[in-house]
């Protein structure tokens, strides 16, 4: 492999304080700079590494910007049709009960076209993990309205802002599925600050650990920016997210050990 460091002699075990997990493929991410997808990928794969389950993990990527997650996550993967990841995961976990199975989905994928699959997998109490990236917009197709788009927020299919009288209200699907007896751990996190990233990693670990208990779905929503879709710089986007997204989508645990906490 090509040596990328100016001083390879400094790269000794005692100097090594941090390394990229081997469960991320060594290639440039396809995401926009500042996008949350890449951070969540890393946290998820660190959890897989920490837990030592890389060889028994099967992941499912959605249709959306993270369709190419399978190119970056160094575990066996399947790419689902738009919205159907929970159906794939349902079958895989039932056919391979000793594997750790996760879906990774955007808001259009999970809360619009795939609403039925999401709700029914949660209601059946399937034993896999759902990672839900809520950026309030359709990133991949160029910034159209999502089920999670905020009232008044402009997108390419609501160029004058989301008019809830015509287009309906933003959907809080995470609160919705938390009501179902089949979900065991439901939380909403973010990855815009180091502290938030650490919390998200803990949440991902807890959600994956749910699969050891066999008591139902572990569900982690990550409120994330789509700076390209929102037409902002990454810094502006994170600020806007704190000011506008968090009031509607407050961070924190919603259901823990099968009990609603909020």
């Amino acid at each position, binding site marked *: 492999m090509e040596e990328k460091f100016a001083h390879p002699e400094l790269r000794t075990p005692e100097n090594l304080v941090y390394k990229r997990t081997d469960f991320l493929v060594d290639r440039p991410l396809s995401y926009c700079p500042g996008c949350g997808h890449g951070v969540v990928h890393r946290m998820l794969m660190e959890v897989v590494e920490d837990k030592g389950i890389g060889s028994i*993990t099967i992941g499912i990527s959605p249709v959306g910007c993270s369709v190419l997650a*399978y190119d970056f996550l*160094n575990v066996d993967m399947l*790419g689902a049709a738009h919205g159907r990841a929970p159906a794939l995961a349902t*079958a895989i976990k039932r056919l391979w009960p000793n594997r750790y199975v996760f879906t990774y989905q955007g808001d259009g994928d999970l809360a619009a076209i795939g609403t039925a699959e999401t709700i*029914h997998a949660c209601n059946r109490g399937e034993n896999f993990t759902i990672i839900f990236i809520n950026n309030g917009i359709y990133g991949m197709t160029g910034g159209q309205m999502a089920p999670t788009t905020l009232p008044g927020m402009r997108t390419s299919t609501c160029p004058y802002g989301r008019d809830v009288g015509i287009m309906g209200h933003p959907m809080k699907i995470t609160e919705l599925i938390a009501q179902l007896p089949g979900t065991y751990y439901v939380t909403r996190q973010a990855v815009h600050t180091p502290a938030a990233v650490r919390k998200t990693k803990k949440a991902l670990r807890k959600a994956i650990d749910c699969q050891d208990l066999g008591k139902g779905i572990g569900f982690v929503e990550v409120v994330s920016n789509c700076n390209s879709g929102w037409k902002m710089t990454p810094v502006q986007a994170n600020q806007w997210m704190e000011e506008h997204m968090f009031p509607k989508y407050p961070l924190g645990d919603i259901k823990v050990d099968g009990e609603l906490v909020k």
Partner: protein
Amino acid sequence: MGELRLMKGNEAIAEAAIRVGCDGYFGYPITPQSEVMEYLMAEKPYETTGMVVLQAESEVAAINMLYGGAGTGKMVMTSSSSPGISLMQEGISYLAGTQLPALIVNIVRGGPGLGTIQPSQADYFQAVKGGGHGDYYTIVYAPASVQEMADFVKLGFDAAFHYRTPVLILSDGAIGQMMEKVYLPDPIPRRTEEEVISQCPWASTGKPPTREHHIMTSLDLDPAGQERLNLLLQEKYRVIEEKEVLYEKIDCDDAEYVFVAFGLSARICQKAVHLAREQGIKVGLFRPITLFPFPKKPLQELGKKVKGMLVVEMNAGQMIEDVILSVGFQIPIKHYGRFGGIIPTPDEVFRMLKEKIIGG
């Protein structure tokens, strides 16, 4: 050894699935095929062979459950009837594009729309010409008896895994519902996880440190890559056309006229052949068993020997296009069809043969 049983076509499919060591069935109720899942739920194979049986929230979910299971090398199947199979088309296209093995049973009812719950053969085009988006085919078996309903489950899974492609059983409400004697072979044990991994080295089963990670997808944004995939698929379909053609010829050796019919229509035409022979008219029956690959060559050969063909289908004229493409225009080829769940009688099709082909 095996055993003989009196069963409905739908039940025979379910029992055959358990006996071939199927790993998972995912479905959604719809008449006239609900007995498949009902039979499986009553038999509880999850307690005996370990086969998963799950009622999905929709046919869309069911076919994507198949996609998930198939992508991990498991032997998975679903069954439905026409409207449900329409809903599955995106998923079937994904299975074809990702080159995944799966068995899909369509117990056809009359359409379009909600149509009727009565038997029909109107889904021929959908089954045989691809069905979903993109350039692909599924192998299509058309059973004409309860015995073949059972037999084609094994045949279908074998072909699906050999070619890594979705396979369809195209039957209809009458064969699904009717009871006949059926011979069931001894059960084959389900494959162990180790066997699945060694038989499906391409599948996403969990990445050991010793190999690259596997990705099951039909996506390739690079046009050259996507064209390569398409060429590969077309190459596979040519091999299938070469090797997998199945058909049956009844009384064709000395025939001057033949019926061409599949599935239930073939059963009716077989009776009509007897009626004709009783009157001293030399009539035969050509029955395609695989609809894709279509038995082009044997039909072409037959076309050189007979004076005319009547294609009998419970639709407005679908397979007749493939018959004409195979035989050409040298002899008269006419169609007779009934729709909406009406099943033609042997007398009726014999009369039509006389009117449209022999008399004309």
